[in-house]
């Protein structure tokens, strides 16, 4: 059973040097409770069975540590491995797979072509699918309708790629599943708030099933954000955007 260890340490009996060494060896993750990027990393660590210390950041008052570890983007997630920081969730996911190659399941496939396909679909999720979904959620009227149509178009491409498989990676989840995973709970929240269904059974049955498979997997169901709190946050975000454009 995976559990996050919150911030500081326990052993009063260790010497200062031992404590520092132990400290440096511990994997740490800087995160924020609602960030989907942070969850992707946490699911990956769970796949590999890696224990880590979790540090919750206040994004409105970022810690000196975070700013020191990620001066370029000042964002979460940041993974600390042997005292060294790694930022950007896609980069972290590949790192986790390589640093703990022989622990747990592989996150990326072995074959170079399959790896290229996995990376392609991760980019698709980030560059092509996310923007219209975000736009659909943060706009209204004609702009929202256009974004909705664009999102459905991209989702249909994804549906074709999934083609009835349990996960994008096959029988077990992999990089693409982790990368797209947050959509499995975010899209239903967006649908509830906007009152519009984006993923309809008649048009996107594989995706609907995948969302279910993903959410119910042992790795994911034990670690999801608090949904009520998240829903409120998403609602506030949508309202803020609508207010800004009028």
């Amino acid at each position, binding site marked *: 059973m995976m559990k996050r260890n919150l911030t500081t340490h326990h052993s009063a009996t260790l010497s200062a040097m031992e404590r520092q060494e132990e400290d440096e060896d511990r994997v740490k993750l800087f995160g924020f409770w609602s960030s989907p990027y942070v969850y992707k990393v946490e699911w990956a660590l769970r796949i590999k069975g890696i224990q880590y210390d979790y540090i919750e950041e206040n994004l409105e008052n970022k810690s000196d540590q975070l700013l020191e570890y990620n001066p*370029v983007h000042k964002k979460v997630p940041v993974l600390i*491995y*042997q005292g*060294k920081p*790694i*930022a*950007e969730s*896609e*980069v*972290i996911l*590949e*790192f986790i797979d*390589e*640093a703990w190659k022989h622990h747990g399941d592989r996150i990326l496939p072995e074959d*170079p*072509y399959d*790896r*290229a396909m996995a*990376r*392609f679909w991760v*980019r*698709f999720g980030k560059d*092509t699918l996310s923007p219209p979904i975000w736009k659909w959620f943060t706009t209204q009227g004609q702009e929202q309708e256009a974004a909705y149509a664009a999102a459905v178009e991209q989702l249909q*491409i994804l549906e074709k790629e999934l083609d009835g498989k349990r996960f994008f990676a096959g029988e077990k989840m992999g990089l693409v599943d982790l990368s797209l995973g947050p959509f499995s709970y975010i899209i239903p929240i967006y649908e509830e708030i906007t009152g519009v269904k984006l993923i309809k059974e008649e048009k996107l049955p594989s995706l609907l099933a995948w969302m279910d498979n993903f959410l119910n997997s042992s790795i994911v169901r034990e670690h999801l954000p608090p949904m009520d709190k998240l829903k409120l946050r998403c609602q506030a975000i949508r309202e803020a955007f609508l207010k800004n454009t009028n």
Partner: protein
Amino acid sequence: MAGAEDLKLLGMWASPFVLRAKLALSLKGLNYEYVEEDLKNKSELLLKSNPVHNKVPVLIHNGKPVCESTVIVQYIDEAFAGTGLSLLPSDPYERALARFWAAYIDDKLLPSWTKTSRGSTEEERAEGKEQSAVAVENLEGALRECSKGKPFFGGDNPGYVDVILGGLLGWVRASEELYGINPFDPAKTPLLAAWAERFGALEAVDPVIPEVNKLVEVAKMMQAKLAAEAAGASN
């Protein structure tokens, strides 16, 4: 060693993304067939090989297509792991650093340059200029960190980040003539300026970079076209 018929690259001569693929192939000493695409009249092969985006570059290896420049470069490195240079280092942390900076180039550097040259308002272009300055400053730091005093991001030899940034070299060179700006100003980013010279002069790189005067010509034609459209639209 792969024969020319095993590897095919669909491209467009001016594209920096296509150049990345060419650089990777060249640095690894791989033979391939190059197919120049007319982007206004895309070939059946291109449409079939990249049905999702219909874009170049596409690398076709033994009939199987790989799309997206960063994906292609990593694929070339992994599929031909025993051949020529290794573009990514072997240590997982070093690999993560390289991927981080490659992502930075595409997520931050390139958009800031695009904003600077093609922003629709003066305000946007000024914002782009500010963001570009920050981005190159960060890259200068990256080069210092990654190279550890050696000639390339990859160390003694060019690597993944060198290739990803190197794809932009043609346009970096053209930028001075087009906009009077050197994105890698030796006064502000001396390491990057020196890197650009050094990388550009490599035997595997120099012949592959598109000619600056041709790029300038294409850009001027594009600018004229956009200006004509704008003038036409406002009439």
